[in-house]
């Protein structure tokens, strides 16, 4: 069934995904589009960084495998995940350790968000100025 995959800040719809025992599997060919990761002989890679696939998966997950268990992979990376099998919506967030590491550096995490007119603004575009970042809500 089709799955809506929210992988960090990337959202995609993968037509031929399937769920088994609360885990999301998708065609390996769709992995890069959905997550940015791709399978190479060194493992799962993103740009110059590769994550070795554990030996226990090696037979099932190779560059020419047809399916990839994204839930297992997220666990391997320490990512928080939540999915609703019935509707096929899956969320794979950042790892808690990565979030904490960034905040520990005291560097302000960047973001890009729209204003009322739909124009996108980022924090980084204001580099060189002092910024008072103010969060609020109507509720």
């Amino acid at each position: 069934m089709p799955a809506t995959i929210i992988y960090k800040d990337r959202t995609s719809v993968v037509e031929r995904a399937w769920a088994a025992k609360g885990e999301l599997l998708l065609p390996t060919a769709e992995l890069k589009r959905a997550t940015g990761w791709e399978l190479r002989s060194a493992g799962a890679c993103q740009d110059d960084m590769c994550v070795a696939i554990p030996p226990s998966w090696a037979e099932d997950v190779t560059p020419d495998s047809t399916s990839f268990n994204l839930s297992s992979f997220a666990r391997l990376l320490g990512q928080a995940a939540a999915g609703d099998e019935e509707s096929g919506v899956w969320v794979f967030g950042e790892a808690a350790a990565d979030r904490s590491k960034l905040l520990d550096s005291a560097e302000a995490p960047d973001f890009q968000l729209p204003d009322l007119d739909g124009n996108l603004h980022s924090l980084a575009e204001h580099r060189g100025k002092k910024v008072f970042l103010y969060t609020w809500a109507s509720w």
Partner: protein
Amino acid sequence: LPVWQALYEKYQDRNFVIISIALDTGGPDTVREWIRPSNLAAYPKVILDMMGWDESESGRLALPTYPSLIDQTHLVAELYNLVNVPMGIWIDEVGRMVRPPEPAGASDAFRSLDRATFRMPGEAVQAARLSRSRYVAALCDWIENGAASRYALSPEEIRGQIADTTEQDALAAANFRLAIELRQKGLNSANRYFAEAIRLRPDSWSYKRQSWELEQAGKAAGPEFWSAVDALGDKPYYQPVDLRD
């Protein structure tokens, strides 16, 4: 927000910008009237009182010309590990935090609001204004003096004041994000994942109040909210800001 515009106008030529971010799943239609009220004079006085804005000072109302952004998925709360609003964060010219997320002058004075008449006792209004004006004065001091301001903190001090994101927090955020996506698809199963996010992160007022508000407009400030605030007892709703004055 109209209340911050005076501060922005005062300092916008001095390399200073305000970025406001509404954590609102309801999107532009929900926040438009708050950001750009069609009638400034009708901006709810009780809100200004609760938040400690004195109209004679920085509370002078004017439509904002700084970026007012909308965060429907509460991404910024996840990035900065926030559990309530409002929060202010000071970021210097190189993108480094010099004060961690803090309630930006909001104080617990609002807790003495009369819930029947929607009025605040005079002394509570004064307490709210004092908290607000001290915070705004500190902010002005930093804008004028930069790193030399006594209110600017070092990375080490910042580090000590920001809680780590735990695995349970990250799991709560994933469930909340899932709930929002399901909600936007019009699916009732959203409620299950809102509940899970709240269960995993009971200290998050944002998770509770956003999901209440989506369930029914006004519920975020209704009886459920007040009984949750009352349940705090002596514990603060807004952690007092330590300005070392």
